[in-house]
């Protein structure tokens, strides 16, 4: 079996035991193989983002198990989980979540800081990634001065700085026009072709129905629907 990430019977409850208890995921079991491009679709509140956070080890499932490369990670202590997260996943968030006031380059290299690699090495890789995404000349520009599409490419470069095998993107095209959306899809396909596992969450038909997508998973009320 070639599955890189496995989810087994995942349940995710927010505010457990409180009056506003909310079950975001119910009995979700999935597995993802290397070199695939998957899209999670479904209406707002269907649990796409929750599934991404559990998948990407940003949060622990309330019940169920998450395995990365066969290793059980869902009950790892936080620092270990952070290491797994850093090595395995690159995130592209919906509003890009770049830190204003910092240059594009600094934003890109931030995830590599805790790895303890030499500054030079990190910066060289950051510059290489930025120029690969045709942002080389904007590397030292402050991120808030960049356009939406440029900001997203900075976010993609940041997701790639630690060379993770999995890229997770939450509603990547929500703030982009259709030209930029297809550019993003192009990039996602390239990443997949490099052998990475790319998982997007989206309810944008331009993405969900794109021919590049290998696999479509539909969520409704926290469950996978066929």
């Amino acid at each position, binding site marked *: 079996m070639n599955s890189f990430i496995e989810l087994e019977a995942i349940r995710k409850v927010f505010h457990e035991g409180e009056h506003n208890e909310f079950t975001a995921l119910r009995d979700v079991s999935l597995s993802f193989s290397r070199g695939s491009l998957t899209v999670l679709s479904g209406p707002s509140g269907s649990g796409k983002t929750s599934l991404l956070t559990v998948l990407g080890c940003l949060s622990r499932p309330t019940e169920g198990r998450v395995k990365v490369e066969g290793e059980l990670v869902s009950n790892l202590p936080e620092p270990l989980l952070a290491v797994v997260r850093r090595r395995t996943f690159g995130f592209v968030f919906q509003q890009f979540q770049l830190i204003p006031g910092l240059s594009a380059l600094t934003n890109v290299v931030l*995830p590599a*800081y805790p790895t303890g*690699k*030499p*500054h030079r090495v990190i910066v060289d890789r950051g510059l290489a990634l930025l120029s690969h995404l045709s942002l080389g000349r904007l590397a030292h520009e402050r991120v808030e001065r960049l356009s939406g599409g440029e900001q997203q490419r900075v976010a993609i470069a940041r997701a790639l700085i630690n060379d993770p095998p999995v890229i997770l993107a939450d509603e990547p095209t929500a703030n982009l026009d259709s030209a930029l959306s297809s550019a993003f899809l192009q990039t996602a396909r390239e990443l997949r072709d490099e052998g990475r596992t790319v998982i997007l969450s989206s309810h944008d038909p331009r993405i969900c129905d794109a021919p590049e997508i290998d696999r479509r998973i539909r969520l409704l009320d926290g469950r996978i629907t066929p």
Partner: protein
Amino acid sequence: MHAWINRQSLLVDYTLSALARHAGRNLAILAVYSCLVFVLASTMLFSDALRRESRALLSHSPDVLIQKLSAGRHAFLTAADVERIGPLRGVSRIEGRRWGYFYDPAVRANYTLMAVASDPPARGSIRVGEGVARLSGLAKGNALALRSPEGPLHVFTIEGVFREESSLVSTDLVLMHPEDWIEFFQVASDLCTDAAVTVVNPAEVRNVARKVAERLPGSRVVLKEEILRTYDSLFDWREGLLLALASLLAASFAVLAWNKASGLAADERREIGILKAIGWDTRDVLTMKLWEGALVSGCAFGTGLLAAWIHVFHFRAPLVAPVLAGWSVLYPRFDLTPSLDPWMLLTLSFLTIFPYTLATLVPAWKAAITDPDAVMRGSE
């Protein structure tokens, strides 16, 4: 090890940029922090300097001082008294000294008039302390007229003014020829104010003092080490009192620091959320926050200490001197010898950096345990 150093240097790098980006907010706390260090450091530097000054002065004073008492009041020693002490084992010299206080109504200050036995000023001439010269507005070569308690006016030529280094105690001193002194105060020539005893072996000082007290029952015997002790206690006490008050300041500062660190601004909170989401772990964020504290502390400590140094050694501590130094009508104007005691630095950091770091620790930790999925949940 290399990885550790790399990681720390990168975290410091990030911290610096974060501090710079939130400069306005950080400057306020930095200013208060520096002020606190400044007050504490000024107090310590100044009292340390005073202590050193008085020690330096007393190093020239006699080991044992004998005063005669009559009806519990200070009286003159006679030559016979000095003879009665006679030759004592361990004593290298006994010398009767003549000095007295004089109130000068013209400047409304007390002078100490002292006769010098060896190398005295010429008859009719005096050497004066810096304070005397300053108050009377006179300099070397001028004449100082003093109306003796007995009536007649005496005019002395100022032969010299003392160096300022020794002015803390000698500032009000007027040195004159013994004959002039006798004439001025109209005191019999076989009387002296007190007697100074020089002892060969410092360990024997107490024995000598005891023997003197036995031979001259009506006398008071003062030891140099006791004066030193009194000075030390006095300076320590004043410094301690001021520091205790300042510690209240430090405590309220710690509360302020706590408050400021707890009220993390929304953009800072968001930044930490992002860092957590992109792979920083609680300890990375905590370390970054501790670096932030260390940098702020270092900056405030350096600034406050430097300002205190300039305040004390350049401007003679105008803000703390009235509390710490004043003991006479003549405020001594003295140059303090600059020096920095490592123990003082250690104490100062205990009283400032330590409470600040403790106060900011819990807020820093609270920021560091931000859930890594907070960023995504916010957008859901």
